[in-house]
């Protein structure tokens, strides 16, 4: 089940949870605003209620990261990068606001765990893969003078565009390589 969770599923989950949360905040503050102007009732807030609220905050703060660590497949790979060996590796360089790819199109087979190693010597850039509908598959920062690598497993067919996700001055605001990555061999297609 966890293997089937991709970035679009995670984003939908996040959008749903945050929307529910936002509605709850608005309702609570709205109800408070109404009630606080009305007479009657108890004006004392019991200490246990405050303790309960504090406990809820602690549990929420901790459980967010525990939940994502156990449901989002790329977290473990990210944090324990050295323990994984890539099926395929692409060395990409960036110079003068231009991506330099090892080939015109990067071909990937279904299920491959692929390493993208992106290096640069001049400025800080970003490296992101985007679907045909412009939604993001993943991204990372590309810091000059350092090895910037990300390991990603592709389980759907798709054609992805590479785009710099970090501002590197006005000259770099259109660093886009359309349809640069192609994944084939899967049963399903990443729409």
């Amino acid at each position, binding site marked *: 089940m966890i293997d089937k969770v991709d*970035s679009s599923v*995670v*984003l939908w989950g*996040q959008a749903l949870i*945050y929307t529910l949360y*936002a509605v709850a*905040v*608005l309702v609570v*503050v709205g109800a*408070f*605003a109404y*009630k*606080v*102007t*009305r*007479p009657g*009732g108890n*004006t004392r*807030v019991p200490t246990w209620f*405050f303790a309960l609220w*504090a406990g809820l*905050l*602690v549990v929420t*703060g*901790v459980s*967010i*990261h525990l939940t*994502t*660590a156990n449901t*989002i497949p*790329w*977290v473990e790979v*990210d*944090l324990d*990068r050295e323990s994984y060996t890539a099926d395929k590796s692409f060395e990409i360089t960036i110079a003068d606001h231009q991506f330099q790819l090892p080939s015109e199109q990067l071909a990937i087979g279904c299920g491959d765990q692929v390493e993208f190693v992106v290096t640069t*010597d001049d*400025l*800080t850039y*970003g490296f*992101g893969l985007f*679907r045909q509908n*412009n*939604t*993001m598959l*993943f*991204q990372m*920062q590309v*810091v*000059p*003078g*350092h*090895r910037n690598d990300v390991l990603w497993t592709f389980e759907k067919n798709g054609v992805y565009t590479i785009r710099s*996700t*970090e*501002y590197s*001055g*006005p*000259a770099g*605001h*259109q660093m886009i390589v359309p349809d640069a990555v192609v994944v084939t061999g899967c049963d399903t297609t990443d729409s």
Partner: protein
Amino acid sequence: MTFARTLLDGNRGAFHPSTLTPMQKLTLRFVVVGLVYYAFAVIEGMIMRLYAVEPFPELIPPEQYFGILTAHPLVGIFGSTYMIVFGAFLFLVPFLMKKPIFSYRLALAAFWLVAIGTFVFWFDGFLTHYAPLYTLYWPLPADTEQFHPLGGAIFISGIAMVMVGTLLFVANVFATILYTPAGMDYQPKWPLFRSAIGLTGFRRIIQKDKSEDLVPLPVAAIARGAVDALLNAGIILFSGVLILIFLVAALFNVDLRTTIVDALLYKNWFWWGLDLIADGLVLLWVAGAWYLIATLITGKPLFMQNVARAALLVELVVSWTVWSHHLLSDQAQPAMLKVLSGELVTAFELITQGLAFFITLATLWSARPLKMTNELKFLLGGLTGFGLGVASGILQADVGLNRILHNTQWVIGPHVHVAILVGLTMTLYSVIYLLLPILTNGAQLWSQRLATFHFWAHLVGGIGMGAFMGMAGLQGMLRRTIYYEGEYRVFMILAGICGGLILLALLAFLLNIAMTVGIRGAIGIFLPSRLSPAVLLPVAEEAERSAGTSPCGPSG
């Protein structure tokens, strides 16, 4: 009174600037200039909102667009928020400590440095299009192939002026807390310092110590935020000097190797310092402002005051250790820092801000039924903004989610703009509505309808804009880029309409304030006061005497 007469003399002629003390005038000058810079930021924001709907490079080329994008947050933070907050706190610290400000001249110097420094970097950005953004990722600020070194040097000098003004403000705040004015009983510095920083309250919780806090809670919040302001100014000044060395060298045709500075190390220290604003002084000062407003509205003691003091100290320490949440997508950043600093310590902000949220509401609840005044409704708006904006920030400060959220519109919409525009700005509006009668010696707000419109337009506009930017971000829309093909046009049109509401809210507010104090009153704020800087509020007889001789007073 006719509209023209009111515009000239203010609502019912009730505002007499000649009755104001130097500190009242200085505070109002801070607020007026802060609001002018806020208008700059809103107009720049609207230009960018329109650009997001449909870019118009023939009118504003990309270089200028990114110049606006660079100036917008800096003018908003330093020119607007810092100005309003500095002005309010330079008045409130002596007001709450019941002693004169340590140095009026120092306060005046801070005013001019921040006001002029902001104009310098804004105008330089407008002319030269120096645009490394506020993040200044190395070596972009020293990239003389994209930016003229002179433009960069002037820009950085403007920022440095603001930072020096900030240091003067911090020095004045602490000096005012710690010094003993002539003619008063001796006030011991060390116990005052311990109380201001939070050590007294912390010891009281651990050791069951019964000793009294010498510093009121809002002043303690101001002092602790000032510690972060001091550290932040130090880091920004250090980074500014570094950038200046490279830019000045370029002006003399000396090409220094930018690789001598490690870009990741730079990013770490810069974010450590920069985060002291977003995750430090803003949260501390906002919590302090909530507590002050809640106690002034209710006239009741703060709910769980000791816990509130302790939470402020925890927040101060937390603010020093959360910077790594900005580097979760930097693969060379150690994983341990990502998890400890980026995720776990950052989650503490949910706890500390959540406690401040609860404590403020509980304090208000203790005095129900309350009248829904402007200060109360804007306070509730501010609480709502942080309730929404902090949580969205906690989500992106997650290793898994950051991989697909970093640098998207999610970050800048539901997190940054909702927290700043709704949370921070509505809190500041609440303070302004609350302090207006005190600072103006009783000026009466011209239109309650405009104030109500101001509230709803700002609230709906701020939350709506953040929400639609966030929806676009979840669909992959990046921040800091230009989309020429209309990829996210529907979201951007909706966000633009909400941005327009914020602009309308500002115009309503400015009109209301202009009609409240009048043009003569507004000019009078900038004329010298005849009263002593040591006097914070005028005594009634002196105010009446001054009003009688005022050009816009009853006999004028």
